[in-house]
């Protein structure tokens, strides 16, 4: 039969009908729908047994315990550790994003050398280490013309680095500026062997001056845990929290009481309170300078004066004094909302309340926390390190008052972005050899002549010694939970190797050995592990079993070591001389009329970590819009400067300026503009680069009379509408 058109059509019709009785159409439709579950460009899940690895976080100085959940050896999620006294199962947003940061696009893939055109080129470790050796050798020949900046206050890495410097006859070892420097200037004369800690857990009244206790200040997660325990869900609070500070930040929002005081005036209010306490007959018997302190306070910080300067009523000030006097175990926490740039006046004034209220080392008050023994030969003593003022050093160099080091080593720090007046300060790195030990391609790495990438903290050994703001001594170890993803090398190993080639003997062949020695050295002190009894419980009568067994084995697997030993304190000084010299003047600054309340939040990263991808959704609509960030002021302030919500505003400080949008927020004091640090990155990755401006640029450094300390927590700016 010939195939004519008609029979062909009939054939097709038959085929079509036949097809309906086969799976072809139905299965295809179904499978196409199933295919949409399985698009090749969307990752599939990988299965594997669930396990946990206990370690310690290094993303900020708070030293929280992290439990890294793994699925078939892949780290997947960071969880809290209930057995860690600094976090007790809690976690901050930055810590919660820790695992994903492993794969941050800003990770440095291998050692890099700066090219003539300013770009970086990957080189081998041999070449990189040879270059470092060459530069250090030159510096050694010049009599130790080398300086080091460490961004990690708590690591034994500081011993390795300061030991290297010391053996090269340099004492220019600096931490990124923090509050331990201020404390050292204020109390260093009598507090040689430790730092002051705050026993929040046993307190029944916590009054924080400036310190953003519940977000980023000190041991933030532990502070929150203490706050949480004192505010049982659905029940009456057992401890009152009062926040004295410039704005309703995280702490101000949730504290039982918020007292609005502009940055820089916390000390004035504290002495105003001290006035009442002194009037009621309180004394500090163990203080040598009590009488000069007493007469200074009573003569100058009268209720009228304090009320005039702070804008609070005399009744409000008196009420705070009553609160403190009535409490059984009150503790007062001094600080600045950004944990840096605080003056001796502010710190000593606030701290004096603690001395007035109860003797040092009483439960629910302040404790002297001893430093841990050092193990690296010739490493600087912690108390010396705390007293080195980086900002003054940089200012002296730029002013030509001291010579510029020929080599700068920067370890896990980002001074190019994160020093006050950052733009001007970073000029210190001009005409020097800058080597950056960093995990991420931050602004300092981008500027560096040599990048020596460190493993991410989930890939390396490291440790955390008693963080600033803690209430007790602690030691815990950071341990690798995954092999390094890239061609990176622990900075400790690099430095030890180079030192050896320089003919210096630091006493160790690898950083892991340093940590082992550190752990062994802890045996000198009467310590215990926190698995059953917590250090604050010891102060109220609990008795722990002394640490036994293989210390390194226990601690390297996550155990936390602590001690209840407190050094003997024969006498204290209230820093009365410094208080009287550093007291802020009564005149107002008309050139820069607005007080700048800078904000740090763990949601914005930390000093050396830019905002992680997973924290971006935390920024509200009025914190970041596209590339523009917001500063906050109340409606009265805004009106005074002709500003409305969403207007573009320029903040001008003596050293720099930046542009933002206005967010009207009534939780900011009068004539105060609140602005977040941690924005305006120029390096890093697409997640953080180019978003907002760098407020560090408008911070203003002044030298505090009396202490000669660089201070910028009380910076001031001029604001005007920007077009």
């Amino acid at each position, binding site marked *: 039969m010939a195939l004519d058109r008609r029979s062909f059509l009939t054939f097709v019709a*038959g085929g079509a009908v036949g097809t309906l009785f086969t799976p072809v159409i139905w299965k295809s439709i179904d499978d196409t729908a199933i295919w949409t579950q399985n698009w090749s460009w969307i990752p599939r*899940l990988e299965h594997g047994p669930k396990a946990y690895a206990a370690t310690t976080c290094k993303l900020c100085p708070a030293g929280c315990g992290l439990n890294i959940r793994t699925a078939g050896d892949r780290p997947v999620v960071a969880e809290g550790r209930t057995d860690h006294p600094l976090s007790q199962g809690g976690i901050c947003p930055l810590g919660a994003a820790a695992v994903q940061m492993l794969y941050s696009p800003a990770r440095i893939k291998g050692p890099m050398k700066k090219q003539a055109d300013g770009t970086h080129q990957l080189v081998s470790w041999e070449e990189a280490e040879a270059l470092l050796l060459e530069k250090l050798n030159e510096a050694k020949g010049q009599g130790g013309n080398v300086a080091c900046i460490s961004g990690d206050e708590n690591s034994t890495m500081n011993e390795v680095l300061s030991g290297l410097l010391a053996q090269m006859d340099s004492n220019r070892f600096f931490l990124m500026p923090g509050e331990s420097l201020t404390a050292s200037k204020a109390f260093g004369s009598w507090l040689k062997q430790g730092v002051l800690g705050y026993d929040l857990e046993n307190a029944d009244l916590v009054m924080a001056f400036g310190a953003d206790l519940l977000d980023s200040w000190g041991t933030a997660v532990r502070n929150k845990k203490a706050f949480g325990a004192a505010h049982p869900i659905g029940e009456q609070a057992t401890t009152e929290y009062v926040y004295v500070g410039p704005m309703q930040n995280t702490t101000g929002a949730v504290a039982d009481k918020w007292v609005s005081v502009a940055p820089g005036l916390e000390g004035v209010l504290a002495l105003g309170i001290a006035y009442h306490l002194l009037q009621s007959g309180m004394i500090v018997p163990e203080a040598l300078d009590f009488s000069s302190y007493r007469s200074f306070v009573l003569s100058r910080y009268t209720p009228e004066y304090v009320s005039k300067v702070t804008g609070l009523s005399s009744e409000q000030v008196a009420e705070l004094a009553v609160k403190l006097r009535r409490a059984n175990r009150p503790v007062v926490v001094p600080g600045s909302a950004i944990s840096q740039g605080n003056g001796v006046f502010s710190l000593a004034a606030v701290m004096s309340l603690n001395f007035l209220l109860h003797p040092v080392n009483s439960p629910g008050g302040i404790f002297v926390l001893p430093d841990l023994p050092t193990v690296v030969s010739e490493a600087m003593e912690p108390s010396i390190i705390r007293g080195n003022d980086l900002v003054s050093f940089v200012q002296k160099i730029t002013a030509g008052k001291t010579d510029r080091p020929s080599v700068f080593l920067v370890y896990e720090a980002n001074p190019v972005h994160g020093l006050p007046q950052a733009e001007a300060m970073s000029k210190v790195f001009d005409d020097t050899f800058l080597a950056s030990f960093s995990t991420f391609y931050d602004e300092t790495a981008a500027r560096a002549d040599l990048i020596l990438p460190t493993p991410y903290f989930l890939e390396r050994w490291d440790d955390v010694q008693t963080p600033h703001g803690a209430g007790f001594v602690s030691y815990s170890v950071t341990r690798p939970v995954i092999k390094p993803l890239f061609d990176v090398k622990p900075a400790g190993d690099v430095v030890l190797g180079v030192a050896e080639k320089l003919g210096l003997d630091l006493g160790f062949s690898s950083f892991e050995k340093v940590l082992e020695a550190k752990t062994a050295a802890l045996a000198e002190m009467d310590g215990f592990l926190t698995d059953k009894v917590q250090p604050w419980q010891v102060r109220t009568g609990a008795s722990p079993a002394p640490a036994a067994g293989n210390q390194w084995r226990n601690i390297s697997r996550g155990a936390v070591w602590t001690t209840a030993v407190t050094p003997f304190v024969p006498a204290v000084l209230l820093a009365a001389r410094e208080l009287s010299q550093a007291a802020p003047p009564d005149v107002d600054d008309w050139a820069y009329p607005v007080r700048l309340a800078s904000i740090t939040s763990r949601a914005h990263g930390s000093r050396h970590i830019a905002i992680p991808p997973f924290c971006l959704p935390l920024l509200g609509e009025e914190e970041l819009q596209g590339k523009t960030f917001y500063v906050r002021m109340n409606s009265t302030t805004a009106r005074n400067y002709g500003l409305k919500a969403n207007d573009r505003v320029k903040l001008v400080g003596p050293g720099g300026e930046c542009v933002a949008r206005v967010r009207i927020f009534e939780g900011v004091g009068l004539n105060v503009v609140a602005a977040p640090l941690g924005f305006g990155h120029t390096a890093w990755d697409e997640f953080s680069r180019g978003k907002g401006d760098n407020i560090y640029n408008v911070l203003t450094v002044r030298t505090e009379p009396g202490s000669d300390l660089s201070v910028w927590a009380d910076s001031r700016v001029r604001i005007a509408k920007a077009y």
Partner: protein
Amino acid sequence: MEEKKEGPSKGAVVVPFLVGFVAAIAFGWWGFPQLLYSSKSQPLNFTHLNHVQDYGIDCEDCHYFRPDGSYAGLPSNEKCAECHSMAMTSDPDEIKFVEEYYEKGVEVPWLVYQYQPDNVSFSHAAHKDEDCTACHPDVGSTNELPPYYENRLTKYSKETMKMKECERCHAKEGASNACQVCHK
């Protein structure tokens, strides 16, 4: 009547129609599956029966529940290497395991006949009293591993149980058929 004469004869209509119909049926039921599925074989031939009969290994020695309630469906290299860290025979599959997988630290990419999509979370613990072969092919009583057919479009195994079958049994047993009991 006139119209009928004008039209073609019955046969001329019916025959091509039938040819088309039969061709479509044949293609749909035989050719189409050939196109839709690709056949794959296991990376190694594992001899279940030998392991059970000759060496007295229990099923649960390799296929066990972890303490957290999850199910270790397939043994890892480590498990196999408890015996096979070195080749004990000249069996090519055993040698391949040792050289290609164990020593290189690569897990054996076993093809699971019953592998469920990512959006399904099958709880072995909830079904631990059922017979394994109610869902899985009975590989335990033979030394041969059957071929694995993969749907080219969906990338799932041909034998992957469809939701209907799960639902039917759940309904019969009085178990919940709420969506999230199985989906994730």
